[in-house]
């Protein structure tokens, strides 16, 4: 029996919805803040901190310090924060049968991150962006002027350095011929 145009459009819409349901954007729309991460104070934070320790293993500091970048209004990640934490847990369950990403070993967590980076386009962007933010926060030490970025031996704020820290004796060993007398070739 022929179907009406309205029925065709309706079925096509349902089909499109079913096809899209496996994709990240729709999951984000339907599950922006899944129940498993509600009512458990700090669960999302612990998941995200584990993520940071996975992608930047030398990260130090409290859970609060490690996840601060994901809420920072300077960066656009906050709306995706809860979804991202739940997506890590979902992948942990799919891959390892674990309910929580932060309960996995470092190796297993790295597998989950790789899984996300090989997901659909939105997942790739989400995971790539989260890694980028974690690295900026951890290695650049953006939240602690004094500590700097210890993971890469960056001193942070300082009062200057002694000459032996700044340069080497016998600069003549290093310096080649110059093209000018004063540093301003014509």
């Amino acid at each position, binding site marked *: 029996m022929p179907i009406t145009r309205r029925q065709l459009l309706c079925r096509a819409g349902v089909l499109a919805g079913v096809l899209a349901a496996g994709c990240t954007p729709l999951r984000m729309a339907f599950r922006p803040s899944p129940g498993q991460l509600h009512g458990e104070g700090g669960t999302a934070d612990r998941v995200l901190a584990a993520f940071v320790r996975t*992608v930047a293993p030398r990260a130090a500091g409290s859970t609060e310090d490690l996840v601060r970048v994901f809420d920072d209004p300077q960066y656009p990640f906050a709306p995706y924060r809860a979804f991202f934490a739940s997506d890590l847990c979902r992948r942990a369950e799919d891959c390892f049968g674990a309910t929580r990403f932060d309960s996995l070993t470092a190796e297993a967590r790295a597998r989950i991150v790789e899984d996300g980076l090989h997901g659909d386009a939105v997942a790739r962007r989400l995971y790539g962006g989260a890694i980028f933010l974690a690295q900026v926060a951890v290695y650049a030490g953006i939240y602690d002027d004094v500590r700097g970025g210890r993971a890469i031996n960056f001193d942070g704020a300082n009062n200057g350095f002694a000459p032996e820290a700044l340069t080497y004796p016998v600069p003549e060993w290093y310096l080649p011929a*110059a093209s000018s007398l004063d540093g301003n070739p014509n």
Partner: protein
Amino acid sequence: MRVVKTDVLIVGSGFGAAAPALRLSQAGHQVIVVEKGPRIDPFRDFRQTQDPAYIRRYLKGLSGERINLTYAEALGGGSGFYEMVSLRAPSAAFRQTDTRGRRLWPKTVDRAALDPWYDLAETMLHVEQIAPADVPKTGLVFARMMRELGYSCDRARYAVRGCVGSGFCVTGCVFAAKQSLLLNYLPQAEAAGAEIRTSLEAVSIRPLTDDREAPLRGSLRVIPCRYEVRCRPTQGSGEGVVFRARLVVLGGGTVGTAGLLLRSKREMPLLGRHVGGHVAFNGSVKAAGILPERLPDGDLFTGRSHPGMISYEFLESHGVTISAVKPLPLQLMAGARLIPEGGDPSRDWWGERHAAFLGQIRTRLMILYAIGMTPPAARITLDKEGHPHVHLQVDGALSTYAQSVKQLLESILRRSGCRLVHADLVRADGTPYSDLHFFTTHQVGSCRMADDPDRGVVDPSGEVFRYPGLYVTDGAVIPSSLAVNNSLTILANAERIAAGIVARHSAGAAVASAEAEGSRSHVAARP
């Protein structure tokens, strides 16, 4: 809106604006400076930080097609945040031509013409060549690499007194050692009577007269106000101001000045088609490598931001100068995905192996940076909301340039025994660019100087064609890439233009200086 009358209104307070502010004030003219960004106290407001909120307060980005521009919006413009490298542009920069073989610079403006003004600018900023005993470790190691390959390398010149090597030049020197304009030109201008108003943005310019024939000369007191500049506050909900000025000097930078003139085109229909065009950008190319064991450690994070050495060896052959780079970690992390040669590009930019690699970069990573005489191929336009947008036309020549310079840098690294490090340049969200993309803080030329209005926006004296009394003195007038940091050339050229304005309008002046007269020949030829 309140209406304020003044002899001279200067828009901006950076390298292009500070010289006219000082010289015109010293000449006894009533000068008001408006600056879009906030006031900065160089003894109190700078921080040794990588806090993005702090950095974004002063440094702005314009992300466009194939090119990103970074510029400052603050009192003193970029001078508070630059690396204090202060070099004269080599003569080769002034000899550059366009695709039709025409010289990019006006006939009367070259290295020799600018040298006296470079002298003056260097004196004002206390510019000195770095002593051999002060060259930072990374600079020395770079120099050693060049020496072993038989290449020359020069000690660079800096605007600094009493550098302690804290390494935070680009977030503002908390020791007030770096000679930003906040320590010389601007306080001296205020002492000479200039009034500086910050957090006030010039929105549009309108001529108050249709008289475009007579070149302006003589005492400013007998010249009526010729331009009206509408300004709005950028902080708080204060009242806007309308300035009426006898002369207006635009020094808001390559982006700011182009934006202002583009927004004013309806009121200034004779501005011509070159506004916003011909943006040059010192096309930068980078390559990185891990030092071989035989070479001593560098130090990316200690000592002045620019590591002290620059090589002109490849200026003639490749059109570039080469330096080493000492980025702050934030610049490094936010700029590129670093993957050592032989690593897995899909995996080794995060995780344990990446962390181990980053653990050695402070002392063992050598980043080479070439800046070159790339053509003025970018353009600034306005979107529907009046915000600036930039796009770069990448042609085969530019692609070839980028490829050949990259090969040159990698060759230097390889022949020095370095293990190359692959660097994927990334967007603000961390995703890599797939196409050739340039990043620069060296943009110039959106309102370039030219010998005639068919080729540019201002004449060699800095005056806008067909709009007497309206000057541009900032990087926007510089017609070409320079292959060295721009700040000293912008300042020297602004000093030159300011001297011309002063000569033209000194009390009782009937004729301009010979220099200014010669460069203003087009005025007499106007119909």
